[in-house]
């Protein structure tokens, strides 16, 4: 019953990149690339004047990427949280809080550097609060971040007096305007964050602990991993991503507002799920999440260029989330099916 040299095992060694550790995510991500290609084809049919014209397509896609960048950064933080087996509902509210905090008259008087620093610190600090509540207060992530979601949004409204805070520091606003080599800085930030996150998840002990805790918290604990401290760090990381996104959104809007980041938690979770992140933890990839964000934004873009109302976009979004979760459940069921030895 024990096959010593199964041909399957041998072929796994030969075609390692395909059949090795990452075959399932790789196949899934190729699927998402396929979906993106499909969306371009739909675009080409719907608006050939844009999608079949090199220059206009390029500028349209840069718009898509710019729109994707802030939600993309948040999705990356969310991906870590979800891989660790948690959820962060507070991301949109943390973004709003960081945005408002960094654009008060007082903060603006210190210049762009301090504004950016304030946003990052507020984001990471609020994430730390989430982490403390969950890791040391032993609260369920759903409830803890639901509470901070409401509280952070309220605090943002209190600070701003529900008024839009115009950013008068022009050098700060330039973050959204600057295009080194013709590529918007916001897109570059997104790419840099994604690359760093990929390295963090796949090449560092931090990433390994994240997967271990989400995959089997008890096994991780019994192997001597400090689960609480790591959970704390994961939520802090998510908060930091909210701070980065706050800078991006604020610069784009040239204003801080307690209304920024509305429903971002839903979009980020949906994008992560479409990208293959398991709601139960332990599984997920940065590439998948990035593709998930791009698919969403591209669909949104198609609605815009066809001048369709945003209601349709929301309906489509709901349908896509349901489809993605269903597909994921089928996959899990397939994985659970007993595997013949050596298959």
């Amino acid at each position, binding site marked *: 019953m024990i096959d010593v040299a199964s041909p399957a095992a041998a072929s796994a060694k030969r075609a390692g990149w395909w059949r090795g550790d990452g075959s399932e995510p790789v196949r899934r991500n190729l699927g998402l690339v396929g979906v993106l290609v499909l969306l371009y084809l739909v675009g080409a049919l719907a608006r050939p004047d844009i999608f079949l014209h090199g220059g206009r397509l390029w500028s349209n896609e840069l718009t898509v990427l710019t729109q994707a960048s802030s939600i993309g950064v948040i999705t990356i933080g969310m991906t870590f949280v979800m891989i660790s087996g948690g959820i962060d509902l507070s991301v949109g509210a943390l973004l709003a809080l960081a945005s408002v905090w960094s654009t008060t008259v007082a903060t603006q008087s210190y210049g762009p550097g301090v504004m950016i620093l304030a946003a990052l610190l507020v984001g990471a600090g609020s994430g730390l609060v989430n982490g403390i509540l969950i890791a040391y207060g032993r609260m369920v992530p759903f409830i803890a971040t639901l509470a901070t979601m409401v509280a952070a949004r309220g605090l943002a409204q209190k600070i701003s007096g529900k008024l839009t805070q115009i950013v008068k520091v022009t050098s700060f606003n330039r973050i959204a305007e600057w295009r080194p080599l013709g590529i918007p800085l916001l897109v570059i930030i997104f790419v840099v964050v994604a690359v760093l996150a990929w390295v963090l998840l796949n090449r560092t*002990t931090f990433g390994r602990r994240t*997967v271990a805790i989400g995959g089997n918290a008890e096994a991780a604990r019994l192997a001597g991993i400090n689960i609480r401290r790591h959970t704390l760090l994961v939520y802090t990381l998510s908060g930091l991503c909210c701070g980065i996104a706050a800078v991006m959104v604020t610069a784009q809007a040239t204003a801080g507002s307690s209304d920024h980041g509305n429903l971002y938690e839903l979009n980020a979770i949906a994008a992560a799920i479409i990208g293959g992140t398991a709601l139960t933890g332990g599984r997920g990839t940065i590439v998948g999440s990035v593709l998930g964000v791009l698919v969403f934004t591209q669909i949104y873009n198609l609605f815009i260029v066809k001048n369709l109302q945003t209601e349709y976009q929301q309906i489509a979004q709901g349908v896509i989330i349901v489809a993605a979760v269903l597909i994921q459940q089928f996959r899990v069921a397939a994985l659970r099916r007993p595997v013949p*030895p050596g298959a």
Partner: protein
Amino acid sequence: MDDAATVSTPTPAVEQAAPLLRLSAVVKTFPGVRALDGVDLDVAAGEVHCLLGQNGAGKSTLIKVLAGVHRPDAGDIVWDGQPVTFPSPQASMRAGIATIYQELDLVDDLTVAENVFLGHEPRTAGFVHRGPGARRTREILAQLGHPEIPPGRLVGKLPAAAKQVVSMGRALSRRARLLVMDEPSAVLAHDEVANLFRVIRGLTAGGIAVVYISHRLEEIREIGDRVTVLKDGRTSAANLPAATTSTRELVGYMTGRSIEYVFPPRPPAPPVPQRPTEPTVSQGSVAAPVAPLLEVSGLGRSGEFADVSLTVHSGEIVGIAGLVGSGRSELLETVYGARRAHSGSVRLDGRVLRPGSVRAAVRAGIGMAPEERKSQALLLGEPVYRNVTLATFGRLARAGFTDAARERAEAARVTGELRLVPADVRRPVRTLSGGNQQKVVLARWLLRGGCAGTRLLLLDEPTRGVDVGARAELYGVIRRLADDGVGVLLVSSEVPEVLGLADRVLVMREGRVIHEAAASDLDEHAVLDLVMAGSLLSGAQAEGDLS
């Protein structure tokens, strides 16, 4: 094995007219295991029929066949004179068989009445009649001799004994004619057991049959009418009179299992002197006994185990024998720091370990292979090498960056030593057999040989779910580890395993260590005796243990 000869052993005092339930030659096979290999069982209406057998003898599988959870591969079930099959739990329930599992399947957040009528609520068009349900529940509880249990109380707020009564109430509400009880007394205190027996007697007086499973022989004598003994998935003795069959005879039917495990030879001289007095003479010093590797003193956790003291020396395998619920797994987890001790201390190499800290234990050089391999030890979807390095990837990393190539190489080296099959460390652990999954867990702690080194291994049921062939291999691995100087503390509910593998054996019963001896001074018979009845103790001591 000549089962024809073994089955036709003593027939009962009085043979009832037609049995309520008759199983003959029931066979159930799982991949790699023949769980039931020809079981015969006769249960008459109004009797308490006890089922005895060691761990792995097939009792649980038999219960599940009766409950309709498993379908037998061969054999006949005759129920009330009719040949039947139970394709589903519902079918078995409808026929009138109610099973009360050890972990009671009650819903804590529903009331007593709601639990009793769960799944068959008195109702009209989907609306539940609360009044009649509560009234019927009160009647049933009164019939069970417990009218004091309020039907409106949430089950979660009831003590264990009352929950059991509610479970039986559920069986009665379905008009069950056969009640299967799996170790009902395991969760009960002494006086509650007496109560349980009163309830059971009331039921049997009304013509209901009870299949009663317990490891405690004194209970079987008190409540049982007839006893059937299982061994290796077969009926080794049927319909013995419970009151008069001697303990020696019963244990005799349970022991001498035909599956003889191959155990590696022990080192010729005991690796470590048990009482470290004699060999130190050569050193000419009185105060230089061989210091134990692990020294547990007065360790206790209320409700689980109390005042446990033990030592493990380097290179020694110490086995703990005991039933489920005797506190052995809890003890192991407390030594490891996964549970915080309420009293006592754990020392490794003379240094006290911080209580309740797994990380302190791991850093000091302790490794554990927990009881539930899949839920407590493995990341099933992750590749083998990542499971092997789960406790060491940080140490193999450089400045926080993991080194996958080095991890794979190290994992391949260690799993190679353990002869992991298939040898590819990139395969997900999910695809491996039970024995090979266990090797992955062991490899995790062996990998540290180069780094801090694992000094002490805690093994909880290391061969659970491992097929017979792979067992011998695991035994060899564990012995080799000990020969390399690792101390091993082993827990197993399989007595032959403890006796065959360990150098020294501790017997646990109801949270206490009741006996300690060299494995060579014990046999299966003696250990089973101790585990089940504590009969080597004086009666007074036994009483003291219970109260």
